[in-house]
């Protein structure tokens, strides 16, 4: 059970003081801090048995290969997949690009891809990349509270829709999408179903289901090191797919003008793999397993409740996304009305309008108080446009945050709420 003060003692960065005060890190949606256990696993790997993996017969290389494949198996178990369905990539972005450059490139003119208006750029641009070739990208919308509009999704799911790719949890609205339900709808249409799980697998229990063809996520967003990501893929699909990058390690046989590729997942891992990253991610998973993913989710819901309540009590603060914490993760995008501003609004023909503080100003204001939130469009510009905004500030929680962080955040925000 996580104490209400979080698990800061495991995370060396939180012993740092800035201007004599603690760091309140509220940007885990962008990247997470690392526990000692993960750092020790990384150093332990390099100090103990670092070597290049596969196809070599000396002791260190045996050990490195074993730890690399054990890490793969740990990832597989964590999400209920088979070992040979786990491909190590750099990050979620690369996992989704791998799909774009393989199954995406096999689509034909007139085929459609269905995504949602709440996607991160990483689940938009790999698909719009194909528009040049006459593939059509459709967007399912969301309602005022930020719930995905399932009716809209169903109506946009056409016979030509070959791929449906949906975020499990929005990195802005926090909305948790009902992927089991969506999976069934997608499979009735015989489309390939892809899940961007960058914001869900780190924060809640997750098991792959028969309806899920591919699932993408990032190590650095779940206490693991940067530079390692995962693509889960159903084996029979992986087996039929062409490889993406080509080079060392991923072949059975190469001649001057011909090649036979390895079986999945190795077929998709060209070049020297990031063994360190795999080992670090595996240690992060071990850390999360000790807490328990139900507990991680419960803890974040608790901090989110406190935060939403605090914001609801403020005069000039608006937050986005579902009101009900059951429907959302621990990421809260918000804005603050600037009641002092008297300038005219250019776009609305110089009519005086509610004026919002720029999100960067909010972030700087909080930065002064050692509270670190993100600001801007959060790599989700189409979502911002749907909301009619150019940006928001965003706070997000993880296992190391405690009630104290939520309280300091709310107190600091309160100072902006009543500024002048």
């Amino acid at each position, binding site marked *: 059970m996580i104490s209400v003060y979080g698990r800061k003692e495991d995370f060396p960065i939180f012993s740092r003081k800035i201007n004599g005060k603690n760091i309140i890190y509220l940007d885990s949606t962008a990247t997470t801090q690392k526990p000692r256990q993960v750092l020790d696993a990384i150093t332990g790997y390099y100090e103990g048995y670092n070597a290049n993996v596969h196809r070599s017969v000396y002791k260190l290389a045996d050990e490195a290969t074993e730890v690399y494949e054990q890490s793969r198996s740990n990832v597989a178990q964590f999400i209920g997949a088979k070992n040979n369905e786990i491909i190590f990539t750099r990050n979620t972005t690369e996992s989704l690009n791998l799909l774009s450059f393989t199954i995406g490139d096999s689509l034909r003119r007139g085929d459609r891809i269905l995504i949602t208006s709440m996607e991160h750029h990483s689940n938009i641009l790999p698909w719009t990349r194909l528009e040049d070739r006459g593939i059509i990208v459709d967007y399912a919308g969301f309602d005022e509270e930020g719930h995905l509009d399932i009716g809209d999704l169903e109506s946009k799911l056409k016979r030509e829709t070959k791929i449906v790719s949906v975020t499990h949890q929005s990195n802005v609205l926090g909305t948790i999408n009902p992927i089991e339900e969506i999976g069934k709808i997608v499979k009735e249409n015989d489309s390939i179903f892809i899940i961007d799980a960058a914001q869900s697998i780190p924060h809640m229990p997750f098991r792959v289901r028969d309806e899920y063809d591919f699932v993408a996520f990032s190590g650095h967003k779940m206490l693991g090191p940067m530079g390692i990501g995962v693509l889960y893929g159903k084996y029979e699909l992986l087996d039929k797919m062409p490889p993406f990058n080509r080079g060392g390690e991923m072949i059975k046989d190469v001649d001057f003008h011909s090649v036979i590729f390895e079986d999945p997942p190795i077929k998709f891992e060209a070049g020297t793999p990031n063994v360190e990253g795999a080992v670090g991610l595996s240690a992060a998973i071990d850390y999360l397993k000790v807490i328990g993913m139900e507990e991680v989710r419960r803890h974040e819901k608790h901090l989110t409740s406190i935060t939403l309540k605090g914001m609801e009590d403020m005069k000039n603060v608006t937050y986005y996304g579902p009101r009900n914490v059951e429907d959302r993760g621990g990421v809260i995008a918000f804005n603050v009305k600037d009641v*002092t501003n008297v300038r005219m609004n*250019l776009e609305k023909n110089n009519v005086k309008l509610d004026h919002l503080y720029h999100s960067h*100003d909010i972030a700087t204001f909080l*930065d002064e108080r050692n509270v670190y939130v993100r600001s*801007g*469009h959060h790599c989700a510009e189409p979502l*911002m446009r749907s909301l009619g905004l*150019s940006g928001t500030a965003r706070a997000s929680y993880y296992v190391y945050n405690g009630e104290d962080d939520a309280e300091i955040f709310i107190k600091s925000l309160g100072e902006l709420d009543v500024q002048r």
Partner: protein
Amino acid sequence: MSWTYNDEVMDRYQNPVKNGRMDNCDIKIDEASTTCGDKVVLYIKTNGNKIEDMRWEGDGCILSVVSTDLFCENSIGKEIRSIKETDDLAFVENFPVKISPGRINCVLLPLRAFRRGAKEK
């Protein structure tokens, strides 16, 4: 409790002196920072190669608004070329408060717009 932004900055943010449209300007520059959502229009009245007056309209963060307003005021009487040649670093250092690296682009917004749009005749 307050912003690090000092009173000079906050006063100018709330009551900018060069904000508002200018009719009959000689140069009009539309600048939008797509990543920040800032949108600014510079209106410039010239006298030969010199700036006679400059105003602005639009919206942005405190830093870009204040920087733009100061820029309009400080440019009056200067030569277009010499403004364009202002060093980025010097420009940022002249700003009335110290800026964190992540915000430097906010302050540079008006100078960049000017460089791009203010052609000498």
